[in-house]
């Protein structure tokens, strides 16, 4: 019998102006990263409600990463600063719940950093894969 290879499920929230464009650039330059990463476009990283992250974990995501513009470069001036603070709080709470720190990340990727985007995703996916399935927060009732 063939054992199905474990593939992590990763949700990436990317801000429209920097990171989503950085992801596009990674595509333009044909820089590979795992298909496990699925990107959701948001106008700004600060649009990401901590609830969305929890929702993803609840529904079975193994890792969630937020990408925004570099500090000081936010298209909306200050959005990424809010992201940084909000996620610091959320992550410390997840820490308290024994959710491994490597399952979440905030990363700054500019529109010019296609290579960084791909490298970040490769690294993140590898770390998440090493942790294995996220079972602590997954709500089995959501599984069909």
């Amino acid at each position, binding site marked *: 019998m063939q054992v199905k290879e474990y593939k992590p499920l990763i*949700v990436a929230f990317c801000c429209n102006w920097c990171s989503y464009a950085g992801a596009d650039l990674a595509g333009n330059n044909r820089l590979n990263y795992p*298909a496990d990463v699925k990107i959701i*476009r*948001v106008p700004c990283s*600060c649009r990401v409600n901590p609830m969305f992250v929890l929702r993803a974990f609840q529904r079975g*995501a193994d890792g969630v990463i937020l990408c925004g513009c570099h500090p000081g470069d936010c298209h909306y001036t200050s959005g990424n600063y809010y992201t940084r603070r909000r996620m610091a709080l959320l992550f410390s709470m997840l820490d308290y719940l024994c959710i491994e720190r490597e399952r979440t990340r905030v990363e700054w990727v500019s529109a010019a950093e296609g290579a960084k985007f791909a490298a970040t995703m490769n690294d993140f996916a590898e770390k998440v894969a090493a942790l294995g399935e996220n079972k602590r927060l997954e709500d089995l009732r959501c599984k069909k």
Partner: protein
Amino acid sequence: MQRIGVFVCWCGSNIAGTVDVVAVAEALKKEPGVVFSANYQYMCSQAGQDLIKNAIKEHNLTGIVVCSCSPRMHEATFRKTAAAAGLNPYMVEIANIREQCSWVHKEMPIGTEKAIILGKAAVAKVNLNTPLVPGESPVTKRALVIGGGIAGIQTALDIADAGFEVDIVEKKPTIGGKMAQLDKTFPTLDCAACILTPKMVDVAQNEKIRIFSYSEVTDVKGFVGNFDVTIKKKARYVKEELCTGCGACTEKCPMKKVPNDFNLNMDTKRAIYIPFAQAVPKVATIDPDYCNMLKNGKCGVCSKVCAAGAIDYTQKDEFIEEKYGAIVVATGFNPISMDKFDEFAYNQSKDVITSLEFERLTNAAGPTAGKLLRPSDHKHPEKIVFVQCVGSRCDACNEKGKEYCSKICCMYTAKHAMLTRDKYPDTEVYVFYIDVRTPGKNFDEFYRRAVEEYGVHYIKGMVGKVVPEGDKLIVQASDLLDNKQLKIEADLVVLAAAIEPDKSARPLATLLTASMDTNDFFTEAHPKLRPVESPTAGVFLSGACQGPKDIPETVAQAGAAASKVIGLLAKDKLTGNPCVAHSNEMMCNGCSSCERVCPYGAITYEDKEFRMPDRTTLMRRIAVVNPAVCQGCGCCTVACPSGAMDLKGFASEQIIAEVDAICK
């Protein structure tokens, strides 16, 4: 329930090469709400768009999902298509299965699986989309150009030519920029001043153009069509409106030892100065770091000799607030510092100079009145070595230089070498190059002329060390084609220093919320299709602030930026972005959390009367979003504790639906 149509694009083989488009279309057909699905070779083509339009009409579609390239590429295209078929354009969602799927994954099953999931997420989102109508805002019919070099000058002239008002803000006392410092221009060898100064005069005489020289932009608020800009006019201690530019003060000022930055500090000027004869505006400026009157109240000579009574030692910095509809960045470039490249002995010998300094040495208005003389002993150099690529094309982890090619050095070095040989046939000229890059009209011909007609020695190799010894410079270099190490006793060494964006660009980008790359060049909205627009609406790019450029390219880009500005200013009203925040007044409790995080001040509060179920009325404070000011970042939606604030187009419900679809 929505009636959704799914359109899967092959993008030739770009998508179809790694994604089974038919399987994607089939899989998505089974999603809730989907009533139609199709695939086509090029969905963005006329035929592809017709396919979408017909399907909308035929199947009464209320929403569509296009699985194609990045929404940054063609979202606007497909929205227009939808609108043409009578569908609200905001009922369109794009699943990015090219840049974020087929181009980054190599295997067909993996790519197909991911494309289906991305499609499902888009379908889930469209199911919750609602038609949106953008608001409108007026356009201030005036443009601001930041930087008064050839890029800024050309942009301003072109905008003014179309009948719009333009202000130029220039941080130096005169416009003209780097081009004013040049001697001749390649490949035609026109005299730079002869083609630039008439343009500067045109600017000065144009009724539509105002020049704020010796000024800086200190604050920018607002958005496309409605920028509020604060300009600091630095105190020049001379009343601009009275000064006639006669220059009497600049001859009588006793403070003679002021480094002359216009000549790159190769000679001196007075503490009150006019940078050069053709300066615009031709107004004197006092350098407060050197003026004795300003420093210790002793002197006042300029005031005594000024017949116009223009000197004002009490002048203060002045702040001007002005409204603009569009902003053009034209902040230009500078050669990098040579401090980290002292193997070339720039800091050890006066006779090692940069190419820009060489321009001043050969310029008739320069420190040597155009005679090519060595800075150290004012002797005529008999052997000159030019070194190319100093600080350009360096490795990313090299802490000294820049990664990019500075683009203009090959040509100006050929020009310098050729002009030297032309004027001084007895002078031997060597150029050390790694590659000679001349992809421009008549550029390679120009370089070949330098070699073939003017006998410039081009040597493939790099200089490794320059040793000042006596009055000579020992240039140790490699000749790669001859496999030799050379030692040339030169009299003058000219370094083609890499160019970098002006230092003022970074803080300006922050003010404008315009993005920059890692080298501090402004990024364009699209590298190919929108090369003169910044991703920030209403901010345009002109000249070397966007990347290294020569004069013809700069002028071309300046004109292109101007035409974009004209296109914007010609509109009376701008349709805004309908994806703005809005507050559900039934849920809002007026706590002010959203107002505090809004970077635009778009949220205000009002007291509203509510009718209660028991027919009493209640006055409640609720948040109101001004849709013309809101830029749609969504920060407030997360801050809102009661869940009243949401973002149209990116509603919490929609994003959660996407999350669910991906995690299914």
